[in-house]
């Protein structure tokens, strides 16, 4: 777990949602262009759904050796990441499905990762976003 920044993967049923959430998180975090954040939204042909290939590709692309935090939206996104994790060898070592609200969690995760936090700190920050009440 030496060096490297924790990688963040954002999995949504929609390519636009995942891409936009990633762009927003990077911008709000004031993170640099080299912050390892990748979006895996929709199916490879651009339709709505979840793609294990896009997820595995995104996770490999952001892996800097410090672990990868995966944030997901709903249903098949959750189940596909869990199924990939159960397989054991399809995602980088130290890949973790983080239980967090998608957008708020993504921002907290990117802020924490770009500040040098480890995988545990990234997970804690993202999960804490559930505690922020809006009303």
């Amino acid at each position, binding site marked *: 777990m030496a060096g490297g920044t924790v990688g963040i993967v954002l999995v949504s049923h929609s390519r636009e949602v995942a891409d936009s959430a990633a762009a927003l998180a990077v911008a709000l975090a004031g993170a640099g262009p080299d912050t390892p954040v990748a979006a895996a939204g929709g199916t490879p042909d651009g339709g709505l759904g*979840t793609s294990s290939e896009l997820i595995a590709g995104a996770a490999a692309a952001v892996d800097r050796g410090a672990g990868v935090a995966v944030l997901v939206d709903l249903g098949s996104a959750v189940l596909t990441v869990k199924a990939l994790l159960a397989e054991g060898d399809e995602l980088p070592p130290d890949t973790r499905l983080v239980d967090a609200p998608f957008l708020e969690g993504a921002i907290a995760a990117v802020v924490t990762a770009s500040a040098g936090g480890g995988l545990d700190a990234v997970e804690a920050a993202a999960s804490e976003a559930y505690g922020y009440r809006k009303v």
Partner: protein
Amino acid sequence: MLDAEFFRRWLTATAALVDREAARLTELDSAIGDADHGANLQRGFTAVTEALAKDAPDTPGAVLVLAGGQLISKVGGASGPLYGTLLRRTGKELGDAAEVTPGQFAAAFAAGVEAVARLGGAQAGDKTMLDALEPAVAALGASTDTFATARDAAGQGARDTVPLRARKGRASYLGERSIGHEDPGAASSALLLTALAGAVA
């Protein structure tokens, strides 16, 4: 004894049934889901038959593991990881034996269904595929004679989901409105068991 050829026959027959019933599955899913269950499973099982034709794995376990991986990577909806996990876990339980007994298959399939329940955090009565799969598991026994009983139990289990209120998956957002419709996942699971019974030579 059941060999790799039996399991290939099972999955090919499932693909054919899914093809035939895709419109009905999608219709069921349009009532309480997002109307893609038939098309999603069709895409997944088409990939399964293509992969099996190309790779021709020579043990029951390898056939099921290959098929499960295809479903997870090709489906795009929740049925992919769920059916993928069912087949892959069952395949892994069978190990690398060249042939398995019906009893060994029954035990492995039970482990596969258990893995599906864990993955989805669901149980029988939640109006999911488990409502067809669990009665099938209970019916499977030490001889292939029980496969037809399992088929009937799964079909009955699927029909029994009609009055249930969904507690898992997208249909659960509908609350009371999910009542009165057969669960599409239970219906497709019944097809899987129909194909299993039909694969017995």
